[in-house]
């Protein structure tokens, strides 16, 4: 099963850069990390997130770490939601994905300015981050079946 997830991740990373909506790249990788975290819990979610972030960092040809950290945190948070969400619905799904994407983007931004002397102010990126988060949140309905199954399994293990 994990092989399928990794293969899908590899394909998503290959296509993600080509997909643009209103000038912004929706973060499809984080949708996968979120879905995997909800289905499998904190540590597997974190590991999968770290793998996704590592691939993104390698493909950017830059500092290895910002996406690795951001996605690992996103995976960990998603995994911890598995045991905490009682009543799941589409609105909650949208809010959670939007919030997790915003957390991931903020972590990446902070890493870039700290470790890569990224020259841009947060003001330059606040709009793209907000827009990307909302766009990714809206795309969250695509993974609704996966989330529902993951939450049912989470309830069993609670």
């Amino acid at each position, binding site marked *: 099963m994990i092989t399928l997830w990794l293969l899908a991740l*590899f*394909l998503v*990373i*290959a*296509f*993600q*850069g*080509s*997909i*643009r909506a209103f*000038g*912004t*790249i929706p*973060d499809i*990788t984080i949708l996968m990390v979120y879905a995997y975290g909800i289905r499998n819990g*904190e*540590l597997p979610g*974190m590991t999968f997130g*770290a793998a996704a972030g*590592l*691939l*993104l*960092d*390698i*493909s*950017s*040809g*830059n*500092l*290895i*770490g*910002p*996406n*690795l*950290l951001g996605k*690992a*945190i996103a995976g*960990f948070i998603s995994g911890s939601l598995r045991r905490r969400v009682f009543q799941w619905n589409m609105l909650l799904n949208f809010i959670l994905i939007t919030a997790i994407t915003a957390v991931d*983007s903020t972590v*990446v*931004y902070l*890493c*870039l300015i*700290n*470790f*890569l002397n*990224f*020259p*841009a102010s947060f003001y*330059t*990126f606040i709009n*793209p*981050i907000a827009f*990307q988060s909302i766009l990714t949140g809206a795309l969250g309905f695509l993974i609704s079946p996966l989330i529902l199954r993951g939450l049912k399994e989470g309830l069993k293990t609670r």
Partner: protein
Amino acid sequence: MFLKKRPILFAVFIIILFSWMTYQSLHGPSRFFNFLLTPINLVQKAGYNVYDGARGIIQDYIFLVGVREENKKLKAHIARLESEKNSCIEATYENTNLKKLLGLKDNKTIYVTSATVIARDQTNWFNSVFIDKGSSDGIKNDMAVITPTGVIGRVYKVFANSARVILISDVNSSIAVRFQGSRLEGIIQGANTGLQLKYIPQDTDAKLNDILITSGMDDIYPKGIPVGYITRIIKKGSGLFQYIEVTPFQNLSSIEHVVIVVPSLMAINRGR
């Protein structure tokens, strides 16, 4: 017991990662995973080709509506350009003769190689593309990348068979430019979503649609290559400089083939 260990493992992971990033910021990005770049590039190239093919089909068949009207407009445009071309030829002859008279050196751009775009950056943080040529084709850092329409960026990182090109719209990018008409100089900086022309004093008469070309002062971009045109000007009361937005001639989201050039032979040797 295991549930309590999770936050500890998470904290340990973060500490290790922070240490590693600190090390990289001091000693340069890690090359440990570079061997994975080739398979990733291959998959990205395939993905890009599929996307490009699908986009081509949509553009060819669905957007055919209005082509006739556009054709008429283009024919009129061609006729106007033909007349302008003739004037340009005259001006070029005149310019060559005048340069000879003045004994000036001919400023020729040196062609390095041409390349195809194989992938785009996967995140919103950097505006960059990957090309299918690398150090084995003579590409070095800081070489200029252009298309027949205008400047698109510079080589930022070179691998054996690929290179990363940072686009002019990236926040890390800047170009020394000059107004084509008034010859006034300025600097264009990337602003993530577009371009911004900086250091143009308040009293300078900049107009909408003014064309900007490279000035060659940065020693990266050859002189005289079109960059873009002014699309927005805001003159603020107290500031020293105007706020000017520039739209690039080349649509940066649809680049297929590029040419790598340098301003002089010295620049080839200087590249890393």
